[in-house]
């Protein structure tokens, strides 16, 4: 273990020292090794010096002649310290016995480590925990935001996590590096932001700063500062030093320009509020030091190895650690609750989350349409860390002043409550990556883009491609055609713009991938198949109970499914009934629309609505039909039929992205005549049905089983991190 010096800076804090020093002495004794304790007194007049000399003679005292402030006081003490590692503590800190080991171990374990911070608790446990030590600063539209983030279970597991700055009142520093940087700057005198400034300059040189989660201290919080300044004065001082920090550390011309443009409007905006005088006071007191601050910046440029953008635009600093992590903390953002038995998208999300939860920690943030739907979350709670639900409501939430955004994502899914929760969750620093499901939720990625966290979008259906197909397949009046074409243009631009925000975009079919990459080859699109729980479906008794029966399963609020059934019953079924009048069609699935319900006649066409288990309906039928003409993306319904060894007749649109061999595992038909004749062929040939069923099951098992697909999905995460240099 390296030698260390614990430095406690004091100003008129005799009582605080009396509380804190014994804990420091106990910690040093517990740690063993070479460790000196130094109290640097900043010209106290409350008897602190005499107290130290008499009560704790083992402590080395540096009695300064006056109050040099936080920065200079510590600089002088560090200059006289002997240890390789210096631990700076405020005089109002009480430390745990084992706080030193994790700090010193960090310097042995990590190359190029500049500082290791302690985890901070308030002594008064009833106070809201404003400081944790897990610090994070990011650039936000021309200004800097500084915050302390929540410590999570995963942080305890990892023990050391990267932070933006180590607190000057509870952290260990490499003495050599500290002195090489010139210590704390007097620019910030009397206090605040010297530690942030020091850490930032160190980070720019490529040195690391970590939080040692297991090193715990208890803080009285502004015990000395409150004696000297009133709350408004403290506020003004903090704000002033934030200006000085920005002016003296930011070298990026783009960021400086952004700051200059945003500066005065912000100053006026905050200055006009109640208590806004603080903002003006801060600016006016910082202004005289503007040129001095910029001169510091010019001085540092030659030693900088990293750019401001890399350090301040979100979670870039996590890169060092994520590459080593096997277990990730993932946030799923979903437009519908991932659950079984409602629609294919929900099934897909459910199985993927369940599979990933075996190796990673998953949190789900999802819309629900009504309060009653919240009970569906019970399925997820068994394996997710937490499930956060937001009732979407019917509101049109987002203004579209130029009226050139597609309606659905912008108007129906941009709920302000969801945005607030998403921003808070991602900003807390708990997650290693965020996965957005559906384009509608991908739109919300703009809210958290500035955190620069790895983000993935699953585009279940490339909507401009689906719209294009809709235009080709159906007849419209001239006005409708113009309007739909304009909607297609809006959707195309929107979809490409949203997709470019992500580090990976997943589609289910090659056609969908081409639809995106055709317009932007730079998009990181991955094709990832849908899956099916083969065991769940194949274990059900698939004996046909109703000969000459057909079945289709779908969610009818999804228009392609509604269109498929109307098309089938109007165009194809009459052709089948000519040859086989007793054929029966079961239309199974949730929320049948008016046009689908209108097809029900109780004899040849049965509309069942939502059922608890679709397997009996698939099992009892002879043939599974998929007469889809519209939409995009891959169809989970065919996989379910394959898993149940049912022969399938489908249109080319329905089999997009699937590994199909016409005549081997499926029969494909494009026109109504072809479709009818294929269905009749199967209804009259039991052997062909069995052969196709076997072929379908083999395909499902070899290519679409969820276990295999979850592993492939994790490879996409790895590829994503590689792309972000993580």
């Amino acid at each position, binding site marked *: 273990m390296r030698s260390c010096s614990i430095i406690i800076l004091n100003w008129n804090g005799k009582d605080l020292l009396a509380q804190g020093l014994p804990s420091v002495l106990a910690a040093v004794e517990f740690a063993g090794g070479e460790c000196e304790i130094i109290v640097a007194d900043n010209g106290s007049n409350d008897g602190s010096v005499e107290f130290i000399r008499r009560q704790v003679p083992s402590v080395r005292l540096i009695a300064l002649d006056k109050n040099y402030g936080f920065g200079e006081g510590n600089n002088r003490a560090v200059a006289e310290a002997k240890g390789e590692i210096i631990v700076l503590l405020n005089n109002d800190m009480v430390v745990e016995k084992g706080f030193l080991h994790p700090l010193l171990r960090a310097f042995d374990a990590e190359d190029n480590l500049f500082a290791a911070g302690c985890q901070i608790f308030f002594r008064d446990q009833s106070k809201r925990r404003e400081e944790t030590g897990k610090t994070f600063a990011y650039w936000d539209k021309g200004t800097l935001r500084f915050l302390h983030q929540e410590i999570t279970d995963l942080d305890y597991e990892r023990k050391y996590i990267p932070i933006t700055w180590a607190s000057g009142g509870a952290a260990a520093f490499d003495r050599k590096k500290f002195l090489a940087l010139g210590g704390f700057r007097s620019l910030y005198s009397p206090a605040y932001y010297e530690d942030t400034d020091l850490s930032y300059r160190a980070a720019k040189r490529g040195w690391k700063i970590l939080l040692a989660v297991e090193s715990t201290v208890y803080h009285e919080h502004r015990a000395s500062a409150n004696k000297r300044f009133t709350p408004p004065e403290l506020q003004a001082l903090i704000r002033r030093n934030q200006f000085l920090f920005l002016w003296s550390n930011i070298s990026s011309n783009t960021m400086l320009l952004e700051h200059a443009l945003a500066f005065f409007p912000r100053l006026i905006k905050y200055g006009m509020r109640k208590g806004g005088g603080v903002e003006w006071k801060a600016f006016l007191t910082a202004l005289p030091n503007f040129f001095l601050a910029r001169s510091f910046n010019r001085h540092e440029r030659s030693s900088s190895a990293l750019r401001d953008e890399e350090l301040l635009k979100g979670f870039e600093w996590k890169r060092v650690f994520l590459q080593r992590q096997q277990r990730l903390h993932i946030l799923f953002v979903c437009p519908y609750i991932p659950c079984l038995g409602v629609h294919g998208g929900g099934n897909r999300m459910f199985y993927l989350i369940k599979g990933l939860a075996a190796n990673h920690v998953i949190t789900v943030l999802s819309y629900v349409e009504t309060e009653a739907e919240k009970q569906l979350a019970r399925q997820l709670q068994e394996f997710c860390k937490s499930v956060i639900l937001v009732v979407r*409501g*019917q*509101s*049109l939430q987002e*203004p579209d*002043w*130029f*009226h*050139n955004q597609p309606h659905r994502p912008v108007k129906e899914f941009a709920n302000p409550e969801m945005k607030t929760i998403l921003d808070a969750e991602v900003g807390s620093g708990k997650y290693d990556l965020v996965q957005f499901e559906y384009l509608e939720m991908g739109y919300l990625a703009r809210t958290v883009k500035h955190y620069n966290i790895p983000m993935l979008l699953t585009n279940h259906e490339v909507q401009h491609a689906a719209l294009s197909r809709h235009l080709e397949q159906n007849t*419209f*009046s001239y*006005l*409708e055609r*113009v*309007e*739909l074409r*304009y*909607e297609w*243009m*809006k959707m*195309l*631009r929107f979809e*490409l713009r949203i997709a470019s925000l992500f580090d990976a975009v997943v589609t289910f079919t090659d056609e969908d991938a081409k639809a995106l990459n*055709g*317009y932007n*080859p730079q998009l990181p699109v991955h094709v990832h198949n849908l899956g099916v729980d083969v065991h769940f479906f194949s274990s059900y008794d698939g004996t046909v109970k109703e000969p000459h029966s057909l079945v289709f399963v779908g969610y009818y*609020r999804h228009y392609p499914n509604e269109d498929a059934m109307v098309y089938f019953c109007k165009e194809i079924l009459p052709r089948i009934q000519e040859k086989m009048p007793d054929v029966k069609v079961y239309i199974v699935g949730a*929320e049948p*629309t*008016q046009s689908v*319900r209108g097809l029900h006649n109780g004899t040849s066409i049965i509309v069942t609505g939502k059922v608890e288990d679709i397997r009996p309906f698939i099992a009892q039928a002879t043939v599974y039909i998929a007469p889809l003409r519209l939409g995009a993306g891959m169809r989970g319904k065919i996989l379910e039929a394959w898993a149940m060894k049912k022969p399938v007749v489908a249109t080319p649109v329905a089999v997009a992205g699937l590994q199909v061999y016409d005549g081997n595992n499926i029969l494909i038909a494009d026109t109504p005549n072809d479709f009818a004749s294929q269905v009749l062929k199967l209804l009259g040939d039991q052997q062909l049905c069995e052969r196709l069923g076997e072929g379908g099951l083999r395909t499902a098992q070899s290519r679409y089983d969820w276990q295999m697909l979850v592993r492939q999905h994790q490879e996409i995460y790895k590829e994503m991190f590689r792309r972000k240099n993580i």
Partner: protein
Amino acid sequence: MRGLLSIARWSFPDIKKFHKGIIVAGCSDENAQRIAHSCSQWLPHVNWAMVKRREPVIASFTGETIFTFHETTIARQFALLRLLRKEKADIVVLTWTNEASFGSLHIAGLFFNARSFIVFNENIDAFFLVVKNHRIIRHHLRWRFAGKILRKGKRILLEALSWMFLYPFGVLSTLAGTLYLVIRKRMRRV
């Protein structure tokens, strides 16, 4: 008198003469259910149809359901509105409940060719939309917009201005942007 002119009537309409009614369900499914139930109780001799924004179906409502605003294009919505005007209903029920965002359905019903209009609120209180009820109507509107009229009015004004002045730029930007994407794609293929 039909349509908006019927609002100018001083007296209440004779409800015994009503045969055909349309409920414009610009509200949540729960409220639509309650209002539909109330209508069928109060006017059992009327054949009711319902105009809804979307699924699901109101289980207890046995009349015809028309999804006007389920249509994706404005052109089709207007086409259906024209068709609905041909229905010539005797009574149109407007649902002015406290749920936001059904704005177009709140007022679309006013353009139907009805003999009379009746308004239901979320408490399932109802009043005829006639001049004789001007005090009730004023009270309702004041209650509905209490404290919100300035905010809503400002929003409506901004929306109207954006349609007049910003929409053309939006169209130009969309057309130009799409042209650029398509040309770039074609050139890449070449």
